[in-house]
């Protein structure tokens, strides 16, 4: 059976260490495999490692699967793991954080590898499902030992060819146009799919993608624009699979500058006053955003992490919508007539991101705050608001999925203070929300191995951020895959479309 599949994004490079990006990772996940895998419920499962153990807190031992062959026929052994561990941490890799810098890989025998750490790390292998293992011999033979940097000025063999151990192999690849997958007959596992060929086409226009699905020219599309879900479901030959996604969408404030870059308030920064942040929080009608903008397909969130990823999420409840209260708060803070502020927002990154921002603009207008919205394509947006753009924003919308599926990542990257230039802490904390108590907890969380104790600490840290109104979390958006009726597919919450779980009648 031939499956035709269209995605908004493209498979940007075939070198699995070039670009850490969801769509690319998912695609390569059909061809390459890591030592671990994640199941349909995202639970960590054995991959190329059959099993692993932690004989001591700083030593992990992995037992490799035997009889696995790369698609070019070579055997998979411990050498390949050692090679991949070096390669993934080498200059030019976009996945360097997958494996700690100081972790030593030791070959015990051909099918056993030890990882020696300098300090305990309970979540060492939490991202290894997307650390794909490459063949040492193949890489050496093809002059591809070094990872292809994203900025490569000469194309490398590995970027244009793939040699994994996975269930599919790439038959042909024309960037931006078409990629053809064929099942790998020598795969070690038992195929759960019944496909003989997969033709993948990137289609970035929403309407075209939907039209292609409706007219039966493709079998699966991702994503389906929210407003078209009904239409697709009403059609005879396709339906939409929806489900919660792990990404949290939130609003952030510049809390570090003494004067906002884009505001009519001069000489002071209103966002340094928690009452102003609280007022903003209470002015946002999250239910209206859910029902109108997201068409019911979002989960309003009180935390900066999805409930699936943190067990005590339920203990947090968003403050109620309270326009009058918000006005009063603003007045108390010294802004009875509100003020003016610029807002940065991507318009092609998250589900209905532009519309969410517009809605927020309207809601804030009711408490007298005039928001000048700058909705822009993601390229411009990121160029402006990220570190490389000097965090030039006063008020913004952003989305975040912790790559480790763990709260530490959120507390460290998003909620950590940015004050130490030698640390990566708070690198994506664009407005520099900062609370030292939270930072201290974060550091303890990293090394704590007792799960319950760790969860309590996480809860405490989130509570600090919650009480500070450091961010306005909005919601977790939904996945929406359009699937032809004769196709069955397993939808995973990290939005990876994995071909090996697809069957077509």
């Amino acid at each position, binding site marked *: 059976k031939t499956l035709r599949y269209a995605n908004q994004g493209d498979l940007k490079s075939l070198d699995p260490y070039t670009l850490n990006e969801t769509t690319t990772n998912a695609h390569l996940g059909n061809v390459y495999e890591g030592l671990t895998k994640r199941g349909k419920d995202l639970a960590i499962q054995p991959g190329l490692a059959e099993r692993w153990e932690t004989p001591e807190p700083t030593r992990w031992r992995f037992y490799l699967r035997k009889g696995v062959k790369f698609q070019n026929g070579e055997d998979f052994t411990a050498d390949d793991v050692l090679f991949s561990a070096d390669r993934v941490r080498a200059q030019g890799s976009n996945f360097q954080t997958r494996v700690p810098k100081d972790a030593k890989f030791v070959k015990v025998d051909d099918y056993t590898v030890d990882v020696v750490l300098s300090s305990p790390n309970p979540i060492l292998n939490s991202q290894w499902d997307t650390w794909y293992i490459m063949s040492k011999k193949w890489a050496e033979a093809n002059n591809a030992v070094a990872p292809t940097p994203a900025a490569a000025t000469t194309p490398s063999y590995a970027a244009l060819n793939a040699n994994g151990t996975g269930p599919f192999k790439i038959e042909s690849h024309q960037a931006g146009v078409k990629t053809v997958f064929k099942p790998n007959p020598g795969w070690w596992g038992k195929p759960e799919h019944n496909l003989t060929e997969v033709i993948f086409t990137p289609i970035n226009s*929403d*309407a075209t993608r*939907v*039209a292609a699905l*409706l007219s039966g020219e493709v079998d699966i599309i991702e994503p389906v*624009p929210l*407003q*078209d*879900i*009904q*239409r*697709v479901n009403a059609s005879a030959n396709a339906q939409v699979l929806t489900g919660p996604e792990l990404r949290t969408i939130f609003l952030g404030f510049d809390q570090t500058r003494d004067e906002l*870059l*884009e505001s009519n308030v001069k000489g002071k920064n209103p966002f340094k006053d928690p009452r102003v942040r609280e007022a903003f929080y209470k002015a946002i*009608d999250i239910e*209206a*955003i859910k029902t*109108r*903008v997201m068409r019911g397909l979002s989960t309003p969130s009180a935390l900066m992490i999805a409930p699936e990823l943190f067990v005590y999420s339920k203990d947090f409840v968003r403050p109620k919508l309270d326009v009058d209260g918000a006005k009063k708060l603003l007045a108390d803070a010294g802004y009875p007539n509100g003020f003016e502020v*610029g807002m940065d927002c991507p*318009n*092609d990154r998250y589900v209905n991101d*532009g*519309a969410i921002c*517009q*809605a927020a*603009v*309207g*809601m*804030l*207008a*009711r408490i007298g705050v005039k*928001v*000048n*919205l*700058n*909705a*822009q*394509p993601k390229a*411009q947006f990121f*160029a*402006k608001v990220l570190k490389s*753009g000097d965090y*030039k924003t006063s008020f913004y919308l952003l989305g975040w999925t912790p790559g480790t599926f763990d709260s530490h990542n959120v507390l460290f990257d998003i909620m950590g203070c940015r004050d130490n230039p030698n640390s990566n802490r708070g690198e994506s904390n664009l407005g520099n929300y900062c609370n030292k108590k939270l930072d201290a907890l974060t550091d303890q969380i990293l090394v704590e191995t007792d799960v319950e104790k760790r969860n309590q600490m996480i809860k405490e840290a989130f509570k600090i951020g919650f009480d500070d109104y450091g961010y306005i979390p909005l919601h977790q958006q939904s996945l929406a895959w359009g699937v032809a009726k004769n196709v069955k597919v397993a939808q995973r919450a990290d939005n990876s479309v994995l071909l090996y779980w697809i069957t077509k009648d």
Partner: protein
Amino acid sequence: MTPEPATTPTAAARASAWARLRDSDILASFLASKVTMVSAFVTVVMLAGAAFAPWIAPTNPFDPASVDLLNSLLPPRWVEGGDPQFLLGTDNQGRDLWSAILYGMRVSLIVGVCGVAIAATLGISLGLLAGYLGGRLDAFIMRVADIQLTFPAILIALVIDGVVRALFKGVAREHTAFGVLVVSIGLSFWVQYARTIRGSTLVEKNKDYVQAARLIGIPAPLIMLRHVLPNVIGPVLVILTINLALAIITEATLSFLGVGLPPTQPSLGTLIRIGNDFLFSGEWWIVAFPGITLAAFVLAVNMVGDWLRDALNPKLR
């Protein structure tokens, strides 16, 4: 000296001007063509609607405080589920579509008119200079025009938009988009004016009345302004109307590609782009009404321009 009141001659002149118009072929051919009359009527009504939008429109769609998200996606009044408050329904932000169309029309028109005004001013001045002065200046201007012709308006706008975004990184699109559009349209449409004006200037400058003026010693800039310009400006009228239509389409296309006006101040094009996302989902009115308005207006303007072209062409009479 006559004791006549000073106004008489001008009044007489005006009367005769009116008489000339009444008598002229233009008016007659206008009255003879029903299609043109209807088009002109549509044009005028739409222009008036756009001009008086703040007084006609029930709400101000540019004021975020006046839109309620909870009113979003309501169908037109006469459709089941419609709200009598919203004649043509609402868009995804809860904006009254009727008001949004009036305001959007206004925005589209302002962009179009400003863009075309820049193009015309630029093109006419350059064309006049090139044609009248000739020589290297002429060659240079026309070469620039050639190069410029390589790139259609869309491409130029994409380029300019990118540059502006890069140069004014901090500034919100709201503040730059308008300028970008106007400048792009101005820069991409001037060539036509320059070529037309240059062509007729080349003819006109050799006519004897220009020679006569030179003979009296009238300086070249004055000759260009007072003698040549009024006589070459005729065909520009036609280009103006047609360009206005084209400018509005260009703006809409750019907005469709996401380079146009921001969704907080939607032009017709932006409304269509927003609406296009809702075409499959059954909210047809968001794309249909702005689409019809745009097409009708452009069509009407083009019809008038078309007629004008024929009416002003003496050879066709």
